[in-house]
C-alpha cells in the first residue's frame, strides 16, 4: 500500500495517510525511547549486579520511564536570569527536530517505509549534523562555564567524528553505486556488508558511538568532570528534550547501522519465513545492546585523545577503506 502511495501523485488523501503514518512512527519511536531507557537501566543493572528499576509498574519496572517523564513534565521550568533567553529556549528544539527528521528516510522493511529518497544516506548524514548546533547553542545560551565547556567539547567531537563516519560509508556507496537506502539493503541480499567491509563497520560503529555522545565518548556531558556538560542549566521538559534527542538518535543510528552493514530486513538463510520487520528489529536490538554494553564496560577518553584518535586513526583507516573498496570494485565487479 505504501509503495503505491509513494509513487502516486500527491493528493489530500495521501497527505492525510502519510500524516497518520508519521504520527504512528512518532509513537513507535517514543515507545522505543521509553523502553530503551528502561532496557539500558535494566541491562546495566544486571551487569553491575543490581536489579535496576523495580518499583513502578510491577517487578520489571515497566512504567518507570513513564513516571520519570511525568515527573519531568511537572517540574518547574527554570531559565537562568543571565541566560540568553531566546537561544536558551530554541536550543532543545534545534537539537531535537533533526533527530525526528532523519527518521523519515529510514526504511524498516520493503513495505514499511515512508519515502523513497534517492539520496537517503546523504540526507541522513546532512540532517543529523544540525543537532550539534542545538547542543552548542544550549551550551552557549546557558551562560554557565561548565555548559560552555561541554558545548565546545561536543561541537569539536561531533565535527571530528562526522568525517570518519561519512568516509566509512563511501566504500558501501562505491560497491552499491547508490545512495538510496533501499537499494543498499537489496545489494546485501546474498552477503551483508559487515563481511565485505569489516573495517568500515568498525569505523562506523566507533564513530557512531562518538556521534551519540555515549561512553566512552561521553565527554560533552562528562559527569565527573563537567557535572552535566551542556545541559547543566536545563531542567524539566527542556532537559527531557535533550535526553529524547539522544535516544531518538540511538534509534536512528542503530537503524542506519542495520541497514548499511547488517543487511536490513534481509533474512538469515533458511529462516526466510520470518518477516523482514522482525529481522530488522533483531539486528537493530543487537546494535542497541552493544551500545549499552559499551557503556557498562569502558572508561571515558580524554578530549585530546578523542581528537587524535578521530583524526589520526579513524580518518586514515576510513580513507584506506575507500581505496581498498575502489580496488576491489575495479577488479571483481
Amino acid at each position, binding site marked *: 500500500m505504501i509503495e503505491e502511495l509513494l509513487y502516486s501523485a500527491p493528493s489530500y488523501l495521501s497527505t492525510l495517510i502519510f500524516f497518520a503514518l508519521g504520527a504512528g512512527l512518532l509513537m513507535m519511536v517514543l515507545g522505543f525511547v521509553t523502553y530503551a531507557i528502561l532496557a539500558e537501566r535494566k541491562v*546495566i543493572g544486571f551487569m553491575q549486579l543490581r536489579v535496576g528499576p523495580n518499583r513502578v509498574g510491577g517487578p520489571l519496572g515497566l512504567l518507570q520511564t513513564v513516571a520519570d517523564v511525568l515527573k519531568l513534565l511537572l517540574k518547574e521550568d527554570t531559565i537562568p536570569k543571565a541566560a540568553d533567553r531566546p537561544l536558551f529556549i530554541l536550543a532543545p528544539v534545534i537539537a531535537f527536530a533533526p533527530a525526528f527528521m532523519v527518521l523519515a528516510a529510514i526504511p524498516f522493511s520493503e513495505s514499511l517505509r515512508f519515502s523513497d529518497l534517492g539520496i537517503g544516506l546523504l540526507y541522513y548524514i546532512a540532517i543529523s549534523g544540525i543537532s550539534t548546533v542545538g547542543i552548542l547553542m544550549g551550551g552557549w545560551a546557558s551562560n554557565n562555564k561548565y555548559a560552555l565547556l561541554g558545548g565546545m*567539547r561536543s561541537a569539536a567531537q561531533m565535527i571530528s567524528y562526522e568525517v570518519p563516519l561519512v568516509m566509512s560509508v563511501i566504500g558501501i556507496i562505491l560497491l552499491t553505486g547508490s545512495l538510496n537506502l533501499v537499494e543498499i539493503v537489496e545489494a546485501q541480499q546474498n552477503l551483508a556488508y559487515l563481511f565485505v567491509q569489516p573495517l568500515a563497520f568498525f569505523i562506523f560503529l566507533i564513530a557512531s558511538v562518538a556521534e551519540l555522545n555515549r561512553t566512552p565518548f561521553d565527554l560533552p556531558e562528562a559527569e*565527573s*568532570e563537567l557535572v552535566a556538560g551542556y545541559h547543566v542549566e536545563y531542567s524539566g521538559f527542556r532537559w527531557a528534550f535533550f535526553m529524547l534527542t539522544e535516544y531518538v538518535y540511538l534509534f536512528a543510528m542503530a537503524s542506519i547501522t542495520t541497514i548499511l552493514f547488517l543487511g536490513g530486513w534481509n533474512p538469515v538463510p533458511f529462516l526466510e519465513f520470518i518477516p523482514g520487520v522482525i529481522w530488522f528489529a533483531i539486528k537493530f536490538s543487537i546494535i542497541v545492546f552493544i551500545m549499552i554494553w559499551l557503556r557498562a564496560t569502558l572508561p*571515558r577518553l580524554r578530549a585530546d585523545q578523542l581528537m587524535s584518535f578521530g583524526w589520526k586513526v579513524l580518518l586514515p583507516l576510513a580513507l584506506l577503506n575507500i581505496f581498498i573498496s575502489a580496488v576491489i570494485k575495479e577488479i571483481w565487479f
Partner: protein
Amino acid sequence: MIRTEEMLLNVGPQHPSTHGVFRIVLKIDGEIIKEAKPVIGYLHRGTEKLAEDLQYTQIIPYTDRMDYLSAMTNNYIICHAVETMMEMEIPERADYLRILVMELGRVASHLVWFGTYLLDIGAMSPFLYAFREREMIINMLNEISGARLTFNYMRVGGVKWDAPEGWIEKVRDFVPHMRKQLAGYHDLISGNEIFLNRVKGVGYYTKEDAFAYSLSGANLRCTGVDWDLRKKEPYSLYDRFDFDVPVFDGGDAWTRYQCRMAEIEESLKIVEQAVEQFPAEGDIMAKVPRIIKPPAGETYVRIESPRGEIGCYIASQGKKEPYRLKFRRPSFYNLQILPKLLEGENIANLITILGGIDIVLGEVDG
C-alpha cells in the same frame, strides 16, 4: 587577532569528583589550567582543639571521623600514642585483632579508592564491583565492632570487643574470595587501553618533589622510594608477618594505581597470616587504670595508614586530658602537591590527578 581571556572556574565544594567538600579555583585558558588554588576547610571540626577537653578514651570516636574510610588505623594511632607514653603491654590476642581489622580496613579503603577513581575516569561498573567486596568487609567489621564506618573499636590497652563466634573463619574465607575478585578487576581495568591512556604519564612528579612536599604512602612509593612504616619501624606485631612493600618507579597516576592494587594483595597476605597465627584464647584488654593519665611529657608516634604516614603527637601534663594533641593527617600533606601538578594540564586530567592522590576530606580538614 581574536581577543581571548582566561576563565575563572570554580570547581566544588559541591562537585561529583572532588570526593567530598573540596573546592578548587581554576584559571583556565580553554580547557588548559593556568593556575589552580585549592580551598579547604569546609569539613573542619576542630578535632585537635576539642581533644584538649576530652579524656583519652573520649578522643577515640573523634578519630573515627577523620579518615572515615579507614577508621581503624585512626583508632589505632591515638591508642598507640597513649600506650607508648604509658609503656603499656598489649595482650597478644588484642594485637592480632587490631592488625586484622586494620588490614581489612586498608583493603576496604583501597577498594573505595579503586571504585571512585574509575568512576571519575568514566567507568561505572568497577565502582559497584568494588563496593560489593567492600560491603563484605564492612559487614565483618560491623560484626566485631557494632558499627559500619565509625567503629570506635580500639581502647587504650586493647580492643573493646572480642571476635564473635565464627568471625575468624569468615575472615579466612574472605581472603581467597577477594583474591579471585581482584584478578577480575585486573582483567576488567588494568589492561584497558582507554584507562592506560588516561593514567599513564599523568600527574608525574619525581622522588625529589615527593620528598619536598612530604608525600607519603602510595604517593611516595610510586616514585620508587621503598618506605613503609610497617616494615621500617614495625609497630604492633607487623614484624611477625611476611609481606612485601610494593614499590613502583614511575611517579605517575598509573604507578599509583598499580601500587594501591598491589597493596591490597599484600594486606590480604597479612590477614591470611594473622588468621593462622591467631591465638586461640587470651585477654583482649591489658590492665588499664580506670582513669588514663599518661605521665607528663611529649611523644610522637607514626604508623602507615592506607593514605600514608599518619602521626599523633601528644603533649601531656600528667592530667586525664592531653595538653595538646596533633595529628599528622596524610591526606592533608599529600594534597599540597596538587597546584604544582595541575599547571598546564586540562580539566579531564584534573580529575585523574586529584583522584590519584587519594584524599579523604574528613582527614584533610581535620
